[in-house]
């Protein structure tokens, strides 16, 4: 079958660009670049983990008789699971000696393990000495533990049937909040990849403009073909990079995230569909944002202009991401639908939605919508290029400009 000429021409452009990029020495750094932080991270992560193991939490030494200590420690065991944001105080029993003051001073000066403070006086006249804030967590927790231990000692144990628990796989409440985590994580990955990789499209036409090859190409193929070819060549290069990084980074991910991806709640559409949609939506976000960048960059005539443009363009990307993340957690809210409808944020928003809602039809609609916009942006960019660059751009000096340029 003979491909339509537009696609065939685009393929010629794409092949040249892809080969020129991938066969260059710089591409090696491109591949290695994202691995540097991973390598460094693995190194530091290892050191960090070993440091963590060595540093123990400061201990509160409890000078008390065994009965009092047991009561306080029992209260601690019941309290600890209720604490959010970290474990509670660590208690260590010390048998009382004759000279309380000397024992207290000795414990406070102790280095191994270091002691945060000393609790003495048992349950009858508890007394805490230590370098903590009077209204801080440690003091409040100790107060609570002593009160609880006293109540347990005074009152008979609670009677009646214990709480009966029936465990289901999940409830809608738990799942919704957990899935928004997957949605955010998915969006973040998509965003980081797009911001890392799409920016390159800004400078894609500078080469042809500076070496004048654009004149040969524009005479032979439609400008749309040039844009499509360049866009897909860079997408292919991006995928090549992503595949290499994924393979190389798989070990690192396993190292960093205990349980790897399984640490995240299963997305609503299931993992395989979610990853499939991730591939599709990354491509779409790359094509959408990339076609826009290509169009903007094609208007620039120097590398300097492209460099100047790259900051505002990055900012614009941040705003797109912000728009897409508004809807996470409320996939049917107005802001989520706005994020999915606005073409540039649509892939991010829809990828988030895939984590939260199982319906697949909206994805099909969104994809058609996004493809339409890629075509539209490319068409407009090509028209703008033909109008403003091919006709009057400084890359082509018209005869009368030549005279002016001589000076």
């Amino acid at each position, binding site marked *: 079958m003979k491909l339509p000429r537009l696609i065939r021409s685009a393929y010629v452009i794409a092949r040249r660009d892809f080969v020129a990029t991938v066969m260059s020495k710089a591409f090696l750094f491109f591949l290695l670049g994202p691995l540097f932080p991973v390598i460094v991270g693995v190194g530091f992560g290892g050191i960090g983990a070993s440091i963590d193991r060595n540093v123990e939490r400061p201990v509160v030494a409890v000078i008390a008789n065994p009965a009092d200590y047991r009561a306080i420690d029992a209260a601690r065991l019941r309290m600890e699971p209720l604490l959010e944001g970290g474990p509670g105080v660590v208690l260590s029993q010390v048998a009382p000696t004759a000279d309380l003051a000397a024992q207290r001073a000795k414990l406070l000066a102790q280095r191994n393990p270091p002691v945060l403070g000393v609790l003495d006086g048992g349950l009858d006249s508890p007394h805490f000495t230590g370098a903590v804030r009077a209204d801080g967590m440690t003091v409040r927790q100790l107060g609570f533990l002593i009160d609880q231990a006293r109540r347990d000692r005074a009152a008979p144990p609670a009677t009646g049937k214990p709480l009966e628990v029936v465990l289901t796989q999940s409830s809608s409440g738990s799942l919704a909040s957990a899935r928004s985590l997957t949605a955010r994580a998915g969006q973040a990955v998509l965003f980081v990849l797009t911001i890392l990789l799409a920016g390159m499209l800004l400078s894609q036409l500078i*080469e042809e403009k500076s070496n004048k090859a654009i004149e*040969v*190409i524009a*005479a*032979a*193929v439609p400008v749309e073909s040039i844009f499509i070819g360049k866009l897909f060549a860079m997408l292919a290069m991006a995928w090549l990079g992503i595949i290499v990084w994924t393979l190389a980074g798989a070990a690192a991910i396993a190292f960093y995230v205990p349980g790897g991806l399984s640490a995240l709640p299963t997305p609503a559409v299931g993992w395989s569909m979610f990853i499939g949609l991730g591939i599709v939506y990354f491509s779409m976000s790359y094509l959408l944002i990339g076609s826009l960048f290509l169009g903007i960059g094609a208007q620039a005539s120097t590398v300097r202009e492209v460099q100047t443009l790259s900051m505002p363009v990055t900012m614009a990307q941040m705003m797109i991401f912000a728009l897409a993340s508004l809807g996470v957690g409320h996939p049917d809210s107005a802001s989520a639908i706005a994020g999915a409808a606005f073409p540039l944020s649509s892939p991010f928003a829809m990828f988030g939605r895939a984590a939260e809602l199982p319906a697949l039809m909206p994805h099909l609609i969104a994809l058609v919508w996004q493809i339409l916009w890629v075509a539209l942006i490319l068409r407009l960019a090509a028209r703008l290029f033909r109008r403003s660059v*091919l006709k*009057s751009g400084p890359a082509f000096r018209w005869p*009368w400009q030549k005279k002016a340029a001589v000076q």
Partner: protein
Amino acid sequence: MATSNAVEAHDLVKDFGDTRAVDGVSLAVPTGSIYGILGPNGAGKTTCLRMLLGIIDPSSGTRRLLGHERPLDAAEQVGYLPEERGLYPGMTSIEGIAFMGALRGLPIREGRRRAVELLDGHGLGNWARKPIRNLSKGMAQTVQLLGTIVHKPKLIVLDEPFSGLDAINQGKLEELIRREAAGGATIIFSTHVIAHAERLCERVAIIAGAKVAFEGAVDEARGRLRPIVRLRTRATDGPWRAALPPTARLDNGDWTFELPSSGPEPLLKALIDGGAGIETLSIERPGLHDAFVAIAGEAAAREMATEIGQAA
């Protein structure tokens, strides 16, 4: 679709902002001919070619390229060497030529095969696998020219192909143009050097000040001028002077004037009968340069001459 003209243009106009770069250009390039577009720099030659090729659209007017209203539809049968040569410097000569062929629909493998042949044929075989950035300017230009014809186009458009080439390479290029034309291709080239057009072209368009001052056969352009008579006589005055036209100029004893419309015989008779004493007499057919001066004006011709001077 059979058409006797490979390229036709009707009343092409191109405005860039307030400047009218091309003002009502009409051309007809017969299939299989070598066609020259002559004019000083800034006359609008390049803009004309870019419009014909569809790189830019005219502000008004129409053009047909190999029977296609939209020039890009004919792109696979067209080869174009722009005035500003441009190749990817990192590509090898073979890849550069094959890429240019691929842009015009030639399969890349076939392009590479032909590239090797063409490069060998033009004495660049040793450079075939070297990056274009290592080539001299003249060699790179040859590589681009080979890339322009690698897909065997029916129409070859060359914008100022001789500029930047030394005399030997200019000769080789003329040969290549003749060879391609003999093979059936139509060739259009622009130049500001009249001699090239005079040697190669059957037809020319003379563009000056954004307009076509003349379009037609080279002989027709020359035919617009009367032959020039140069005469030296022993006698300085006599009744024979009446046979000379009033515009005749005397310069160091040499008379120069256009041959009167009555032809050479009455002139000769008058000179002999009047006892002028003819020392030398020549009747010359005017060259394209004379025709250019007559058509485009002294000013345009002087500009061309200065440019040639600068080029040399």
